[in-house]
């Protein structure tokens, strides 16, 4: 019984980790080895793929571009979502529930629908091929998500906390910034994490709204195939490096996400 119980998670983890292991495996191989033979370990261990990424500006520039718009987007989304979520959690106003639902429906729209109008619009105002264009486009999906997550966390804070602060003489903003925001820090962490992840992995809008200057890593990865045939080792290394920021962020918010689940959000 004890052995069988351990078996299920073991098999599960094996299946989950196998593709990631394979990616890691490939990233340390030469392209010839990948195409030529089936090996569980790199027979000619090489870090050349990684060296290339860190030395070639078209490669590492992709990471920098991606990080820039992801960070802008995350900060913007959370900053906008905080007061909105506060309003939804604390006040009753005409049509509040409908507005909340409408906000969520934005999250459900496929990004492809918006690709063309965004492209036209950003070109017209001169934002095409800038990190701001991608960051703004992603807020359409991330603001509703952040509002939804934050609203859950805020509603779990009793309204009496606000009242106590006012009774103690706090002005609204002093209370909001000094007391309330630190109180829901976990929620802000979770919301920021989800904004970060969406923006980091979103490909279509990021690719459509950029060309050269603000080209994201995902676009770099998909366009590299042509120059000298398929550089699979290089692509695998780029893939590994793409996973790392996500893994890094999830490590910090893992406990908060569990809390978010408990609140019925996330």
């Amino acid at each position, binding site marked *: 019984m004890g052995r069988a119980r351990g078996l299920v998670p073991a098999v599960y983890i094996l299946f989950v980790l196998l593709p990631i292991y394979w990616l890691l495996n490939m990233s340390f191989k030469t392209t010839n080895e990948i195409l030529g033979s089936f090996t569980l370990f790199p027979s000619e261990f090489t870090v050349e793929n990684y060296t290339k990424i860190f030395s070639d500006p078209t490669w590492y520039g992709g990471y920098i571009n991606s990080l820039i718009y992801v960070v802008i987007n995350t900060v913007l989304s959370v900053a906008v979502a905080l007061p909105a979520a506060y309003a939804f959690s604390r006040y009753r106003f005409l049509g509040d529930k409908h507005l909340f639902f409408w906000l969520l429906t934005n999250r459900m729209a496929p990004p492809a629908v918006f690709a063309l109008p965004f492209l036209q619009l950003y070109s017209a105002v001169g934002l095409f091929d800038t990190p701001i264009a991608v960051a703004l486009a992603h807020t359409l999906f991330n603001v509703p998500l952040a509002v939804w997550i934050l609203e859950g966390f805020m509603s779990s804070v009793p309204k009496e906390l606000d009242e106590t602060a006012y009774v*103690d003489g706090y002005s609204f903003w002093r209370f909001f910034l000094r007391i309330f925001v630190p109180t829901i820090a976990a929620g802000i962490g979770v919301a920021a994490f989800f904004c970060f992840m969406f923006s980091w992995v979103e490909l279509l809008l990021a690719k459509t709204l950029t060309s050269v200057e603000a080209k994201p890593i995902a676009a770099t990865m998909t366009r590299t195939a042509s120059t000298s045939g398929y550089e699979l080792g290089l692509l695998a290394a780029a893939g590994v490096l793409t996973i790392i920021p996500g893994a890094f962020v999830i490590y910090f918010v893992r406990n908060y996400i569990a809390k978010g689940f408990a609140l019925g959000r996330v």
Partner: protein
Amino acid sequence: MTLELRQVSKRVGADVHIHETSLMLEPGSFNILLGTTLAGKTTLMKLMAGLDRPSTGSIWFDGQNVTGVSVQKRNLSMVYQQFINYPNLSVYENIASPLRVAGVARREIDARVQEVAELLRLTPMLKRRPSELSGGQQQRTALARALAKESSLILLDEPLANLDYKLREELRDELPKLFADRNCIVAYATTEASEALLFGGNTATLHEGRVTQFGPTSTIYRRPNTLTSARVFSDPPINVARIRKAGDEIVVGERVRWPVGRAARHLADGDYSIGIRPHHITPHRGNEGSATIEGRVLVAELSGSESVVHFDMDGQTWVSQSQGIHPFEVGSLTRLQVDVERGFIFSADGDLMAGGD
């Protein structure tokens, strides 16, 4: 420094939360708002605090109309039933926070925090976060914050309700001492009649958004002016029965006849209600003017020092509360003595007609 509510009412949409109410709270007084949940205690407190604006009427503090003054500009403190503290601040900073906001000098803050912390036995916990404290300590922190501010109005909204029995007893004893030598108005909301009796001071009985009576606690207990006030201020619930007065007798239900009490003798014959507190129905031998009644025991709750018995008489449930442990067998017929002399007689409209000291 008096707090006065003048014809204040609160309406939310079509619902009336507080009916027109006038109250005058004197400086240095301990005022109890007694009522069941949803009676309007919290709403009334929020109006006093200025967290809510009354729909009609005005609120006067120290001779000034403060109806539209924001809560931040009033000098008051509030403690809630839930243990509300700032979770991101240490206990020390929690207590100091109203003083910091008010811009009190650092040395003065430290002196005041140390003083109230000592008073509430929080000194060893000052560096901890509220979440690391027990419920009782958390509520003490909230009380300490209210005291440190030295406000002229302190509102306590069922501060002991969420504490377990032992802590409640402990804090209940401490509370009146904390406010004793402060010249502030204290308003204390509670659902428990026993707490009101323990604290003394003044009591306002609330029922469905109405203050039914306000005055010194003992007076309200001894002479409830209406049936509603008597019901609010009785735990276990007061026994109420329809009666008919006929000469020297009162007829309860159909066949039970009791001698009329001395106080009720002058009343005209007719229909009334009688209210008898549970501790005036006992198995002990009654004094002059008491009547014997017989009923079937429904429930018997025996605690260490008293017996509470629910029994059925003529299809109505009565409650008796007596000192000592008495063997009551559920389902058996039992004889009890009713101290009719101590009963309250109310008119058909619920106004007190006779009885009470």
